[in-house]
C-alpha cells in the first residue's frame, strides 16, 4: 500500500504548525524541538506504532538522526514513514529521546550515542553499548580513524600494480598497534577499573518470613555455553527470581559499519554473511536487495528463483536449529540439537556445491547470483526439502507433547504483541504473540509476491508458542521451496554487466527484508561513488535483545537462559 507522504506532511503540519521543516527525498525533516509531539501524534493518532530503525549519519555540515516508522494496522501495513532530525551543532549535538514513546529505541539510541556522540536528553541509561565505557572518540564520525588506517576508501593506492611497489610487510609489521589508537587523556592501564554496569545496592535487603535475603547480582557469561556466543547478562536476583536483567554486548564488536564505509559496494557482500553466521545467505540477500533498490537494477529471473531457494533453505534450517538450541538450553542436552545439526549438514552441502563455501557463501551479486546450479543440484535440493519435511514431522512428534518441555515453557516470557511492538521486536517472536506481520507479505521484495504461502501466528508469545511458531514457519518455507523448485526457469543468472566497482546514485534508503530472525534492514547513504557514504545494519537480534529484560523479570533464573535462547540471537549480528 502506497503511503502519501505529502498528505502526512500536511496533516502533521496542521496539527503542529512548523513541525515538519523540510522534505529530503522520501524523508520528512522534523524540527528537533517538536520531535516528541510529532512522534506521539504519529503513533497515537495516525497508527504508526512500530519504530523499527533508528540511526544517524555524519555529514560534513550536520548530523542527522533517522527514524523509520511503520504501522501494524492492517490497512496501513506496508511502507512506513521515514523521518529525520537535523542537528547543526556538531560539537555538542543533542535531541530528545523517544524511549518513553517506544522503549525499543533504548538500545539503538545508545548505539547512536556510542558511535556518533549524539546525546539523547531524557534517556534513562545513556551509556556506551558496543564499546567500553571510557573509550575515546565516537568511531562513526568521519574524522575518527581506526587503527590500521590507511586511506579513506578502498581500493588503497598501494594495491595498484606499479614497478616500484616494495615487498609488502605483514599486517603486524606494517602497522603498529599503537598507531592511531587514542586513549582518554588521563588513562592509566595499571590503575584503570572498569565502570560497573549496575550499582549494587546493599541496603536492598528484604525480609521474607523472617529470612533476610540480599538482592544479589549474578554475571552470566561472557564465557557461558548457553549464551549463543560471547554475551554477558547481569542478572539481579531475589532468591531465584529475576528482578532485573542488564545485557552487556559488544564483545565481538569489530566496527562492521566503518569497514563497510571503507569498502567498495561489492566488497561489502562477503562481509554481510559474517553478521549472522547461522543464516549467511539471507544477509547477502538483504544487502543486495537494498543496493539494487538504490541502483534501480533489474535481476535475472533465474537468479531471483535461486535467491528464494537459498533464502528459504536458510530460513528452514535456521528455525530447525533454533528449536534444537532451545532444547539444549532447557537441559535436554545435545540430542535434539545434534539431530538439527544433521539436517543442517545436508543444506550446507548444497550451499557448498552452489557457492563454494558452507557458511561464508558470498553468493549474491547485484543483478544476479555468483554461480548457476546444475539440474542435478536442483534434484538433490528437492530431496533435501522432502527430507526436511519428514524431519520436521519427527521433531514435532518427538518434542511437542513432551510434558517436561510444556511445564518449562508454557506461560514463560509471555508478552502481548502490543508490548512487543513497543520494544521493536520483529520476526517469529512477534508473530508467535498473534500479529501476522511478515515483511515478505506487507512489503514484498524480490519475487515473494508470486508465491503462495501463509503467515502462521500463535496466541500468547510464550516460549512454547515461539517453538511452535518456528516449526510452522519452517513448514511454510518448505512450501515456498516446493513452488520455487517447480517453477525455476532456465536462462541467465546475471542481468546486465557484472562490474567489480559499480557506482550507486547519490541518495539514501532504508530497505528491510524478513530475515529468519526478524527484520533485517540496511540503511545506506551514497554520495554517488563506488563506496557507501554510510552503511548501517539494523540487526534483528540486537533490537530483539532490548525486550529481554521485560520478558525475563519475574521468572526464575533457570528460565533466563531459555528466554535468551528463544530470541534466537547471534552475537556476530548483535555486536557488528
Amino acid at each position, binding site marked *: 500500500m502506497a503511503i502519501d507522504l505529502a498528505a502526512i506532511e500536511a496533516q502533521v503540519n496542521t496539527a503542529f504548525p512548523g513541525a515538519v521543516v523540510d522534505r529530503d527525498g522520501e524523508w520528512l525533516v522534523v524540527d528537533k524541538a517538536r520531535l516528541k509531539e510529532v512522534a506521539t501524534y504519529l503513533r497515537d493518532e495516525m497508527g504508526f506504532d512500530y519504530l523499527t530503525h533508528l540511526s544517524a549519519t555524519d555529514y560534513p555540515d550536520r548530523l542527522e538522526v533517522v527514524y523509520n516508522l511503520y504501522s501494524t494496522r492492517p490497512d496501513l501495513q506496508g511502507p512506513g514513514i521515514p523521518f529525520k532530525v537535523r542537528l547543526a551543532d556538531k560539537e555538542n549535538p543533542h535531541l530528545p529521546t523517544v524511549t518513553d514513546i517506544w522503549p525499543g529505541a533504548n538500545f539503538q539510541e545508545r548505539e547512536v550515542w556510542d558511535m556518533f556522540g549524539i546525546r539523547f536528553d531524557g534517556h534513562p541509561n545513556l551509556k556506551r553499548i558496543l564499546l567500553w565505557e571510557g573509550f575515546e572518540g565516537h568511531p562513526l564520525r568521519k574524522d575518527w580513524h581506526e587503527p590500521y588506517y590507511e586511506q579513506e576508501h*578502498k*581500493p*588503497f593506492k*598501494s*594495491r*595498484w*600494480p*606499479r*614497478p*616500484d*611497489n*616494495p*615487498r*609488502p610487510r*605483514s*599486517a*603486524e*609489521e606494517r602497522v603498529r598497534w599503537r598507531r592511531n589508537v587514542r586513549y582518554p587523556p588521563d588513562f592509566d592501564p595499571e590503575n584503570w577499573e572498569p565502570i560497573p554496569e549496575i550499582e549494587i545496592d546493599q541496603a536492598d535487603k528484604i525480609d521474607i518470613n523472617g529470612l533476610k535475603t540480599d538482592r544479589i547480582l549474578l554475571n552470566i557469561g561472557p564465557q557461558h555455553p548457553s549464551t549463543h556466543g560471547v554475551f554477558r547478562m547481569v542478572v539481579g536476583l531475589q532468591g531465584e527470581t529475576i528482578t532485573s536483567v542488564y545485557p552487556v554486548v559488544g564483545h565481538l564488536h569489530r566496527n562492521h559499519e566503518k569497514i563497510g564505509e571503507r*569498502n*567498495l559496494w*561489492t*566488497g*561489502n*557482500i*562477503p*562481509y554481510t554473511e559474517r553478521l549472522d553466521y547461522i543464516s549467511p545467505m539471507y544477509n547477502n540477500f538483504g544487502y543486495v536487495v537494498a543496493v539494487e533498490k538504490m541502483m534501480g537494477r533489474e535481476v535475472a529471473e533465474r537468479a531471483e528463483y535461486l535467491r528464494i531457494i537459498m533464502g528459504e533453505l536458510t530460513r528452514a534450517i535456521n528455525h530447525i536449529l533454533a528449536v534444537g538450541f532451545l532444547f539444549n538450553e532447557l537441559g535436554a542436552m545435545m*540430542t535434539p540439537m545434534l*539431530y538439527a545439526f*544433521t539436517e543442517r*549438514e*545436508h543444506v550446507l*552441502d548444497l550451499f*557448498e*556445491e*552452489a*557457492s*563454494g*563455501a558452507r557458511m*561464508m557463501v*558470498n553468493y549474491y551479486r547485484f543483478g544476479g547470483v*555468483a*554461480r548457476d546450479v546444475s539440474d542435478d543440484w536442483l534434484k*538433490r535440493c528437492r*530431496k*533435501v526439502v522432502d*527430507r526436511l519435511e519428514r524431519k520436521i514431522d*519427527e521433531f514435532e*512428534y*518427538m*518434542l*511437542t*507433547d*513432551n*510434558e*517436561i*518441555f*510444556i511445564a518449562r515453557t508454557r506461560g514463560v516470557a509471555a508478552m502481548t504483541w502490543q508490548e512487543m511492538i513497543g520494544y521493536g521486536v520483529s520476526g517469529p517472536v512477534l508473530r508467535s504473540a498473534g500479529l501476522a506481520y511478515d515483511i515478505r507479505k506487507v512489503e514484498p521484495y524480490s519475487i515473494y509476491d508470486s508465491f503462495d504461502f501463509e503467515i502462521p501466528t500463535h496466541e500468547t508469545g510464550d516460549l512454547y508458542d515461539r517453538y511452535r511458531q518456528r516449526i510452522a514457519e519452517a513448514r511454510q518455507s518448505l512450501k515456498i521451496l516446493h513452488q520455487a523448485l517447480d517453477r525455476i526457469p532456465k536462462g541467465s543468472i546475471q542481468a546486465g554487466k*557484472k562490474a*567489480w*566497482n559499480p557506482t550507486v546514485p547519490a541518495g539514501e534508503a532504508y530497505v528491510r527484508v524478513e530475515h529468519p530472525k526478524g527484520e533485517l534492514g540496511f540503511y545506506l547513504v551514497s554520495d554517488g561513488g563506488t563506496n557507501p557514504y554510510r552503511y548501517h545494519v539494523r540487526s534483528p537480534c540486537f533490537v530483539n535483545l532490548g525486550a529481554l529484560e521485560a520478558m525475563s523479570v519475574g521468572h526464575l533464573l533457570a528460565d533466563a537462559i531459555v528466554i535468551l535462547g528463544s530470541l534466537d540471537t547471534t552475537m556476530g549480528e548483535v555486536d557488528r
Partner: protein
Amino acid sequence: MYGLGLLKGLRVTMRHFIESYTYDRSPLKWFSLKGRYDQEWLEKRQAIEGKGLFTIQYPEQQRKITENFRFLPMLVYDESPDKPRCVACGICARVCPPQCIWIRRATDNRGRPQARPAGFWIDFTICMSCGFCAEFCPFDAIKMNQEVKLATTDRDQDMFYDMDRLLVSAEYYAQLHPTDYAREEEARRAKEEAACRAAAEKKAAAEAKKAAAAKKKAEAQAAPAKPDDLTRIEGIGPKIAGLLAAAGITTFAQLAETGVERITQILREADPRLARITDPTTWPRQAKLAAKGQWDALAKWQERLKGGRE
C-alpha cells in the same frame, strides 16, 4: 495420559539408536571384517535419504571436497612458472575486500612497465576466502585453491605467500575445477577461432580488393608493363609494394615518374599511421636509378640511407 509425550520422544531417540546399527547393514554383517566405518556403509548413511549415524572418523576418513569449494587464491601458469597467465592489471588487488593482494609490475631494461608481475604477494592471515579475485580476473590467471592444511608456527612469515608459492600449473587447476576449466578453455578456443576467422576474412577481403583493383588497372592499361620488384627500393616493404601495385604503380619507371605527394597520398589513404612513419622522399630517385639499371650506384646510395631516409 501424562507421560505419553515423553514416551513418544523416547521412541524417536530409540529408533535413531537402532538405525545407527541396522540402517547401513543387516545384523548378519555385524561381525563382518569390514570396519564400522567402511566407506561403502558410510556413503549409504550420509546420503540424503540416509539414516543412522552421521558422523565420520576424521582424519582417517575424509569427505570428498566439492568441485566449487574455494579456500585461498593461487596463480595459474600455462607452460612454465616463468610465464604466469597474470598480466599485472591489478583488478584482483583492487576488488579484494580485505585488500590482501600486492603486485609489483615488471619492467623491461629501459624501465617501461610490462604486462607481467615481477612480484605477487598475498597475506593469507587476512584473506577472507571470498573468491572475488578469481571471479573478476579477466585472464583466468588467479583461481581458488582447495588446500586447507596450512597450519604453521610462524604466521608472519609462513602465511605471507609470494609468487613462488602461489604459482600452480594449469593441469593442477584443471584437476581441482574440471568443469570451470573445460568451460574456460572452450570459451578461449571459441574466442581464438573467432579472431582467426575474422583475420582470415579481413585478409580475403583485402586480397579480393587488391585483385579487383589490379584487374581494373590491367583493363585500363592496354599494354601493361612487366612488374618490377619494388621492394628493392629501400623503405618499401612488401606491404607498401602491394599498396603501390593496387594504385597502379608496378614498375620502377612508373615509380620514378610518380610525385612524392602522390605516394604519400596513396599511403595515407591506405593507413594514416603508415603515412606518418614512412618517408617516401627518396623513392622516385631510387626508382630512377633502378629503372636505368644502375644497380651499383643504387646500392652505394642505399648504404648511406637509413630505412630509405637521407
